[in-house]
């Protein structure tokens, strides 16, 4: 069956360090993958989209990689800040539907 797995339910990172979140998908090959941020009680907010022919994409302190061989995307936040604390969702679409992973709750510790 087709699955999306995000590396852990929660991740604690010291302020200033780089946070790395993992998204693995199985049994299908999305043409692109999206990452969203969700704060408690609010809707997700789009962050980045990376296509299958792009190895890496950057936006300010965010960097996303997409390895179609490993079926994995890595999401990095450099120089992390307490305001980066949130749940991060990966969304590799399947059959033109946006399918979300469970998310990783990131806590940046001051």
């Amino acid at each position: 069956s087709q699955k999306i797995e995000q590396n852990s339910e929660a991740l604690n990172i010291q302020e200033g360090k780089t946070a790395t979140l993992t998204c693995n998908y199985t049994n299908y090959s999305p043409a692109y993958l999206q990452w969203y941020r969700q704060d408690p009680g609010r809707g997700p907010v789009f962050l980045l989209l990376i296509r299958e022919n792009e190895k890496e994409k950057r936006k300010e302190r965010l960097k996303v990689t997409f390895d179609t061989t490993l079926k994995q995307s890595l999401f990095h936040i450099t120089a992390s800040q307490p305001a980066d604390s949130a749940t991060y969702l990966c969304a590799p679409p399947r059959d033109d539907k946006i399918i979300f992973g469970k998310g990783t709750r990131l806590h940046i510790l001051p």
Partner: protein
Amino acid sequence: DAGVTQSPTHLIKTRGQQVTLRCSPKSGHDTVSWYQQALGQGPQFIFQYYEEEERQRGNFPDRFSGHQFPNYSSELNVNALLLGDSALYLCASSGASGAYEQYFGPGTRLTVT
């Protein structure tokens, strides 16, 4: 420019009742998708509307139905509510491509007792 709006914010219903949730898309968007998000889970795709037609559907029973109006706003209807329908219901809008960057509303928190 208003983003995606949803109403109501919160709703409490009794098992067996019916509920209607409403969504207005971001200006310029014509595609609306609905998601159900249970506590601690990622959003689950219910269906997507484009040009007043249901274009895609997720793995949800027929108790979940929807509608899109000519002004692109949308409704989600759930009949014969079950306790398990308690969740945050999210509406997202996007451009004609539908499957790319989506803008989400704040959601409607539905509690079924």
